[in-house]
């Protein structure tokens, strides 16, 4: 690939100050060495130390490595290097990898291999029967313990839900965040972090000025449905049971994933959103498969200044193998391998022609998996229109949906210019979050475009 676009590189920054610092290093004059080959780009830059820092980027990830002492990931040097590649590609010379690049790339390949081996090892029974038996015993003991804790936690949740409805939503709202937070903390103790998050979010719904009672009751009802389903997990179809477990807070293990078949395709990395959740940052990357026509969601978490794992950069298309987590409506996936990234210029093949078609599709999704929080959205012929304090996205058939208030609506309006454009985003059943669009043969992210 020729490298990344400016928007893609900025999207990789862990926070705005890193983006700015990276931009400051995006000029070739600062680098004493700038080289690349087909798979990686590397450089040397003088920092505050005696020797220059050595920065390198594995273009396939992208993954970063730098000798500077910064704890941020990627550091400003990594961002700067990619920015130089994006804006001044002629100044980055084709060359053979020096030893320090060969070494790091080899280490990466070895780690990846080792992880894969461990995963398969864990999945297959060990040769030593005693070791294997002991491992199994430990595992089942932990599992049983967790099951019990979760069951107790969910029982408490049921009582709490009934009490909340019995005393009334007004009383609950007046009680303030304390009422929700205590129950959420109890669920965390019960090893049900997913349920805990669903409870915690009630605080933000209750704080809304308009429609809060609808949102709160919806969430309480959803939680109720979750506890009911958890009680009869065995009688549910396997995929739906997987969704229930996922919503409560169990995650699919690497071993389980390793055993599932992968889906190979050329995937458009159409859009991305990074959100702050309590103490974590969550990154959602949406992919559309060119041949299979499937949609996939890559989820990444980072705590504090920790890096997100490598994921294909939005605005590119990659040949990748994804493995979908079991679900009644499979969306979430993990990346098994990726290669051969190229720039993305449009994602119209995946787009619905109208909101009606997309809403039908969403209806089936929400009905199949009621705890699905958002479905991917790709629609062509869309124009944003202002309606007083809110914005609507209008399609070509005379229908409209409300845009989420966090969408940078004026950027969207400027890119559209009153012309219909193809948009990729998320639909949460209430409002549409427009994340990226294509126009004039360019892929344009809507968030962080002009900040």
């Amino acid at each position: 690939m020729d490298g990344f676009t400016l928007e893609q590189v900025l999207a990789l920054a862990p926070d705005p100050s890193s983006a700015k610092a990276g931009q400051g290093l995006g000029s070739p004059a600062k680098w004493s060495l700038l080289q690349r080959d087909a798979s990686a780009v590397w450089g040397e830059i003088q920092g505050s130390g005696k020797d220059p820092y050595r920065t390198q980027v594995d273009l396939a990830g992208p993954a970063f490595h730098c000798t500077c002492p910064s704890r941020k990931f990627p550091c400003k040097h990594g961002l700067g290097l990619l920015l130089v590649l994006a804006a001044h590609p002629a100044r980055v010379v084709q060359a053979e990898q020096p030893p320090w690049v060969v070494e790091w790339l080899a280490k990466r390949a070895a780690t990846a291999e080792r992880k894969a081996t461990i995963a398969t090892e864990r999945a297959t029974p060990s040769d030593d029967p005693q070791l294997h038996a002991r491992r199994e015993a430990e595992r089942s003991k932990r599992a049983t313990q967790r099951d019990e804790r979760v069951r107790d936690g969910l029982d408490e949740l049921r009582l709490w839900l009934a009490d909340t409805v019995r005393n009334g939503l007004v009383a609950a709202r007046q009680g303030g965040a304390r009422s929700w937070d205590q129950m959420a903390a109890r669920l965390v103790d019960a090893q049900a972090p997913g349920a805990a998050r669903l409870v915690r979010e009630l605080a933000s719904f209750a704080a809304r000025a308009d429609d809060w009672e609808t949102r709160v009751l919806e969430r309480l009802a959803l939680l109720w449905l979750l506890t009911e389903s958890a009680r009869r997990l065995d009688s549910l179809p396997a995929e739906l049971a997987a969704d229930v477990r996922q919503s409560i807070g169990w995650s699919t293990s690497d071993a389980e994933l390793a055993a599932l078949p992968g889906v190979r395709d050329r995937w458009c990395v159409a859009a991305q959103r990074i959100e702050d959740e309590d103490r974590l940052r969550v990154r959602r990357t949406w992919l559309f498969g060119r041949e299979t026509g499937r949609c996939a969601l890559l989820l990444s978490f980072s705590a504090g200044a920790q890096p997100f794992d490598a994921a294909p950069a939005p605005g590119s298309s990659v040949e990748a193998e994804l493995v979908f987590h079991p679900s009644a409506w499979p969306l979430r996936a993990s990346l098994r391998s990726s290669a051969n990234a190229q720039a993305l210029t449009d994602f119209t093949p995946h787009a619905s022609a109208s909101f009606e078609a997309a809403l039908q599709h969403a209806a089936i999704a929400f009905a199949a998996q009621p705890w699905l929080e958002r479905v991917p959205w790709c629609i062509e012929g869309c124009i944003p229109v202002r309606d007083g304090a809110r914005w609507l996205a209008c399609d070509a058939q005379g229908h409209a949906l409300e845009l989420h208030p966090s969408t940078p609506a004026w950027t969207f309006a400027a890119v559209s210019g009153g012309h219909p454009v193809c948009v990729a985003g998320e639909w949460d059943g209430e409002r549409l979050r427009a994340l990226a669009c294509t126009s004039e043969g360019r892929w344009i992210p809507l968030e962080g475009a002009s900040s």
Partner: protein
Amino acid sequence: MNAWQTLVSRALVGVQETTPASAAELPTELEELLAAHLSSSTFEPLAGGGAHAQRHLVAASVVATWRRAGRKSLPSLAPPTAAPDESMRLLPRAAQSSLRRLLAGEFAIFARAWFARAAELRWRIPPELLPAALTFAGERPELRADFLRVCGERGVWLARQLPYKSFAAGEENEDWETAKGVWRFGYVVRVRAKDPAAARELVAGCWKTEAVEMREILVEALSENLSEADESWLESVLADRGAKVRANAIELLARLPNGALVQRMTARADGLLRKHKGSPLSSARLEVELPPELDDAARRDGLDAKSLPRSRELGERALRLSFILGAVPLAHWTQRLDADVATIVELAARNEHGRALLTGFSIAARRQRDAVWAAALLESDVKLDPNAAATPAQLRACLPRETAVKLLRAGIAREGVLTTPPTGWTPTGEALIEFAAPWPRALQHDVAESLQARLTVGALRPLRSGLERVFLGLDPELAELCLSPWSADETGASALFELVRFRAEALEALESAA
């Protein structure tokens, strides 16, 4: 949806035993589903009297899922008229990244030059950067003209969609009535360029209703295409309550050589300034009287202490003399005093009231854009109070550019750009800081040479702000040359190096073909 509303309203107050069970108006399938579930063996009623709440939650979960899945779209609204197609090329990638940094507030001092160059090369800002760029240019009036040249059709279209009146929205006649504030100012300026009388009518028409701050700038808006037709209205403004409004009106009236104000001031001045012809024993000199007590006419003409600026060097009556002289056509003096400009200036400098005289002449030179007088005043050594007199930069602006450049080069040759040791700027250096780019090559070379000769490491930080402005006038290579003896880290003036480098790269990016 009624069933949901009922569920919500009941839940708001609390679902107690006494609350009648269940909701009405559910679609039949849901009603049946609910009934079946509630009566089946898998339904386990909660202990402790929560049964009604439980039933409520079960019903709510069914209806909520149904609502969410069955969400319908809203009726669409009419989209705005589509923006016209663009004819200009899109800004190249590398230049887009320079623009992003400028819009983020970095290298603010370079923004104007960047926009000017981008406009010259006829680039177009990418649409996703337009909202930020519109705000940026809205806050910086000096950028607006160039912004309008690079924003493309889409930029004007976007400005017209905004809920407030943007400077970029262009003329829209009907909006004069509803629009307020600074938009009216822009509108008057645009109309004045095409139809001066109409602009004056507009201002006169809204005069009674506008606040004093608006009246001040509306008068200024009439400064282009000033003519004698404006005189009678401007004279009426002399009775306005706002001091600055009156002062602005006087500024304009003083530029009408056949006007009544000028004639009044000339009459006053003739009584105060005379030349005494020399004799073989004594040289020629000027006789100056300070103005007498104020009368109503003088107050109306803005000569009272409250209307005039405050000056530390000139007393009240001396200042009044200056402002009287400031309204007199300079040609009058060469005739009446029967001497050339240089002589008059020299005689004035020697006079005991020299400061007041020269201040007055400088004000007149600025208003009348008189190059000869401006040059003569610049040559004279007398330092004038910048509160009252025209500043050297303003006088220089009256000169044709070549003359200004010549004076600057002479100044550089005489005293250099920096003092020795380089703790500050010489008067020529200060003049350079104000002098607008682009500078002709010869001047640039002189400046670069002078800098290279005197600039030291220690001076880079204290003189940073002046150096930034001077470097903007030099071509990027020359600027880098001046900084080449040092590197960014050792000087502690990394911001200066950043600016020079950023500017060099940004300008290069603008020149690139794609």
